């Protein structure tokens, strides 16, 4: 059964067609990649999925519910959380606090309970901290939990974004270039982490990635966007051989034809 279905999702900014009738299915238990040249509309698709943009046309069905028109926080509560391409942590908050903010939609204490500091509230806070610690551990940030996010190294900041997104207990995790700026061994560590997440922490992962080794290594399915249009989809090996994909990435055919001899 498909966890997420997109039917003809379109979005334009002024004259620019950022997404042109994109459809895709994402199955439970799978890792899918979204690739394409810069400006192909990958991040726009993420922003549309998470409610930052409202699609002009089309339908987004998540667990048999339409997400179109929902506010970002409601979508997070419904079970989709994300990381950002350009890291957007809460820089003057500690690592722990960053992860705890991610849990906002899962903590249900109301104002009276907080003000009276009831037992239930304190237990919930304690449990939340324990869970946050578990995620800090999982992403390899143990020992850093009381540091401000802005003082972390670049790679740690990327991992903290993942921990924060996981804190929302998502069914679907959206990762926007999670290995950008990481070296090969760091990227490989993350790949194993993503595989571990499936089934245990999330039901599916959709990731935007430029690092082809990562894409080919972990994806069950690859979707290719170019100029807002989906030009190919399939198993990594199929996509790799697809002439349209090669053209989109390298532009070789057209370039060779018009190049002066």
């Amino acid at each position, binding site marked *: 059964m498909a966890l997420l279905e997109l039917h003809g999702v379109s979005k334009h900014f002024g004259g620019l067609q950022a997404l042109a009738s994109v459809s895709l299915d994402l199955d439970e238990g799978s890792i899918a990649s979204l690739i394409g040249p810069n400006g192909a509309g990958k991040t726009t698709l993420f922003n549309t999925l*998470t409610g*930052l943009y409202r699609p002009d046309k089309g339908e987004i069905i998540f667990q048999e519910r339409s997400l179109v028109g929902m*506010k*970002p*926080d409601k979508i*997070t*509560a419904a079970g989709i*959380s*994300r990381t*950002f391409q350009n890291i*957007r*942590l*809460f*820089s*003057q*908050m*500690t690592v*722990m*606090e960053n992860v*705890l*903010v*991610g*849990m*906002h*939609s*899962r*903590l249900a*204490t109301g*104002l009276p309970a*907080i*003000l009276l*500091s009831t037992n239930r*509230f304190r237990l919930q*806070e304690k449990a939340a901290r324990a869970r946050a610690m578990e995620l800090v551990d999982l992403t390899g940030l143990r020992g850093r939990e*009381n*540091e*401000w996010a802005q003082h972390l190294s670049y790679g740690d900041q990327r991992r903290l974004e993942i921990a*924060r*997104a996981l*804190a*929302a207990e998502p069914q679907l995790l959206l990762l926007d270039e999670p290995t950008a700026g990481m070296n090969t061994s760091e990227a490989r560590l993350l790949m194993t982490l993503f595989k571990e997440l499936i089934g245990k922490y999330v039901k599916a992962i959709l990731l935007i990635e430029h690092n082809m080794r990562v894409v080919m290594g972990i994806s069950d399915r690859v979707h290719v966007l170019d100029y807002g249009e989906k030009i190919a989809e399939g198993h990594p090996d199929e996509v790799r051989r697809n002439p349209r994909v090669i053209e989109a990435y390298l532009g070789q055919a057209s370039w060779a034809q018009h190049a002066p001899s």
Partner: protein
Amino acid sequence: MSATQAAFGLCGYVAATCLLAFLFPQSVLAFLSFQASLLLLYYVDAPRKVKLFLGASVLFVLLPALGWLNGYYLEIAIQIGIFVALALGLNIVVGFVGLLNLGFVAFYAIGAYLWAIFGSPQANAFIPGGWFPLSPNWFFVFLLLSIAVGALTGILLGLPVLRLRGDYLAIVTLGFAEVVRALMNNLDKPINLTNGPRGISPIAKPPLFFEPLLQFIGIDVPSAMLYPLYFYFLILIMVGIIILVTRRLENSRVGRAWKAIREDEVAASAMGVPVVRMKLLGFAVGASFASAVGVLFASKQVFINPESFTFMESIGVLAMVILGGMGSVPGAILGATGVTILNLQLLKGLSLWLNGLRQSGAELVIPFLGSYSLSQLPAQFEPAKYERMVFGLILILMMIFRPQGVLPPAQERKK
């Protein structure tokens, strides 16, 4: 220095300065060093129990006792308390949620007028029946009511300006405060609600419900002597509650959501924080603090008019928050205390001292340059009048050398 040594040192300091302030009831310096003991308590590393005990004895016993001897000290303490409460309220909006509010005094004014109108004969002007002023017993009802009214006005202001940020929000909040002031100035016709620029008086004081008890145990004090102490303890309790509420909110999902909004609104909403609701809550909580303090202010002053709620007042409270360190509870307390002491004590003290010199007519002898009679010191040279200038200078220096404030929010300490 070991913790026990520090504890003894603290006890000694508190006892010594208290004795000084007792022996020299007119000395500004003695009282200042006594006030500094609270700051010392915060900084020095001593056993928690000792600190709590000393802090409680200073606030609940020593300061009221000194205030009994010199009423001016209590007046200062009450003023400090009022500004601490205001600064803590504004700190929620500016420091936690990160929304620049230049019209915070409007909520303070709304609380003050709420009690002023009904706690004085003023309400008779538009509600027939001659029921007013209400009996002092209503004071506490209005204190609770003001929390609700403050929260409501906070939300009313918040709703239209939610989409604004930074400069735009600041201008709108400033406008809001001016509108509130203009209303207070002009709502004396066609129906006389606020009595306009003439202001409202006399405003009822809170009830002395404990007076029979005092008489019962044989203490018979005129109520004129009792009121300053009463107000002192009221504001102390109020500040205590405000600190507690702020602390609890800060360490809950609400406080974390506020800070997340301050840091990155888009990321916060993507993490499941309902940005609109949380911002409104921040506005409401901050405004309810200010409004409750307004009720107390009105009954303490007996007379209020729109002049007490000018734009400069908002700026003053904002400066306290910035000086102390935005987003930090100890910072807001320190900022409010420091600025109030500067205004009420230091500059006034300096003025008095200079006046004394002027009248003494002493000669200031500067070698090689001749002598200068201090009686010729121009009368315009009076530090108390330069309050704003000194203040501005301090702000400029702070922004250059310590932009994060004196006590910025500390990173969470390891447990």
